[in-house]
């Protein structure tokens, strides 16, 4: 047997292997260039970008929790223009698809941002983060209301012809309903999950540890919830899924594929091990070889229930 085929395709984006890096955990790619070969991972997803630079939250912004961590970075980012000026030139030199994660504070901002990104040939696709509050609508989170999600995804869809991935929030009663809304609005693929909202407290100070009070829970702790949601959504929609949540090893990644994911994203694991994404891709290849599986695509949704 030759080398197993690890390539997959998400919404027309061809990936050499299914391992992408999750938004916000891999900076703009360059930060990790010393630790792994950026041309041996499937895709790079940027930190979430907004129309204007965003200061983000006060510190502390992160805290370790059992088997996970909370973050309340507050979506700090350089803004789309600085991204194009300062970050994109480096990414252009890397032969790996770049997917831009984006968010808006209002519906309109999503549209404008998508239009700007649509013009950039270096951008292989868009990942829309809808787990953020709509500032104009009393702060209700786009990603927890099917109607709001439908609206924002529709607008982005009208603003770009690029492959459109929508990233789902797990903080919902019915993730399938949200998935349907996004697909109906024109999403080419769905990625899930974003972080679960959580909180940590300093007993001695009698204060929340995070300046923002609550934050997003990520890491191995959330893996069972993520796997369940990927599996549920895979039963319900036809578009390809990207599994995210607590992936630390090749085994974790392959479990997500069995549950129905076509690709995965590695987030918190990048902090524990900056070469995690590449190690996971290598580990997947080794697993396929050892088990005589010629093509990783055979595993997608292959869970027997």
């Amino acid at each position, binding site marked *: 047997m030759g080398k197993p085929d690890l390539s997959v395709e998400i919404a027309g984006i061809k990936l050499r292997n299914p391992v992408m890096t999750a938004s*916000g*955990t*891999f*900076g703009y790619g360059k*930060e*990790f260039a*010393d*630790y792994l070969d950026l041309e041996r991972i499937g895709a790079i997803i940027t*930190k979430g970008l907004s129309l204007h*630079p*965003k*200061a*983000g939250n006060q*510190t*502390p*912004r*992160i*805290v*370790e929790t*059992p*088997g*996970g*961590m909370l*973050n309340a*970075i507050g979506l*700090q980012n350089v803004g789309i223009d600085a991204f194009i000026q300062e970050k994109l030139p480096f990414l252009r030199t890397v032969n790996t698809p770049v997917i831009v994660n984006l968010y808006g504070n209002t519906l309109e901002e999503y549209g404008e941002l998508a239009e700007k990104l649509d013009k950039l040939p270096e951008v292989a696709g868009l990942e829309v983060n809808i787990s953020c509050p709509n500032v104009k609508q009393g702060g209700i989170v786009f990603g927890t209301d099917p109607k709001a999600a439908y609206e924002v995804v529709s607008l982005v869809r009208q603003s770009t012809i690029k492959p459109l991935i929508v990233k789902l929030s797990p903080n919902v009663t019915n993730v399938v309903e949200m998935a349907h809304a996004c697909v109906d609005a024109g999403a080419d693929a769905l990625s899930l999950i974003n972080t679960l909202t959580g909180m940590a407290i300093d007993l001695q100070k009698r204060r929340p540890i995070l300046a923002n009070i609550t934050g997003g829970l990520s*890491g*191995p702790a959330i893996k069972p919830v993520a796997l369940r949601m990927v599996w549920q959504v895979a039963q319900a929609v036809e578009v390809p899924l990207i599994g995210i949540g607590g992936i*630390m090893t090749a085994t974790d990644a392959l479990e997500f594929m069995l549950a129905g994911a076509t690709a995965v994203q590695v987030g*918190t694991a*990048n*902090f*524990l*091990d*900056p*070469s995690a994404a590449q190690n996971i891709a290598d580990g997947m290849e080794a697993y396929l070889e050892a088990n005589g599986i010629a093509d990783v695509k055979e595993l997608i949704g292959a869970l027997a229930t």
Partner: protein
Amino acid sequence: MQFKSMIISNIEVSPGYFRMKMTAPPAAGSASPGQFIMVRVRDAIDPLLRRPFGIFDLGTFATAYTDCGTQTYFEILYRVVGKGTDMLSSLHQGDVLDILGPLGKGFLPGDPSGEKILVGGGVGLAPLYYLAKEMVKTSRVRLFAGGRTKEDILCITEFERLGVETYVSTDDGTLGASGLVTEVLEKHLTAGIADKTIFACGPFPMLKATAEIAGRHDIPCQVSLEAYMACGVGACLGCVTKGRNHSNETPDYRCVCKDGPVFDYRELRWD
């Protein structure tokens, strides 16, 4: 750089404070004083994140019974404060740790002719030893070491062996002068020669007081900050501190891990 490091020794030097000596690849020898490493305490998810520590010492030794020539090593000096450091303290010679580093920007030694004033609070002393070791080669070095009580005063003999003039103070007066290290610093500052630089590491209030003194006396001053860190490489934006020009409209956040941990105090906002 990411590497596996074998523990050579792990010794309690004062109640609750440990000094751990570890092997490193030769390339780690280029670390500069003030840089730090991030340790994966266990190959498990508890604790999850790496723990950051300054480089206390770095060097090489001749290996015995081998043909390998010299082996690079480094040391950290750490205080047991929580889960991760507690686990570290129970490790033994021969145990292997996964290390990321050297990371961040260290101290800039500057003109060797000037006097170098080190200010360390508690375990904040850690990165100053390696700094002193480099600086005594060319410069006059004085150390102001403070702590809450006598157990928090660490490795003074080691500094003295380097030829560093040391001033010890404790909040409760159980060792050295009684009072804050910054009070002792200010008292002895006037007595010094003209061309000085301050290098400080310790708790935030101490750094702030040191920065004030530096400002008042117009002395260049570099401070080494601490922050909760996840990635250590400037990617997660968890460790930021406010830069001089920060405002909500024109954010000027600096990553402690990448732009620091050492900063010129004038680069930062102290409010």
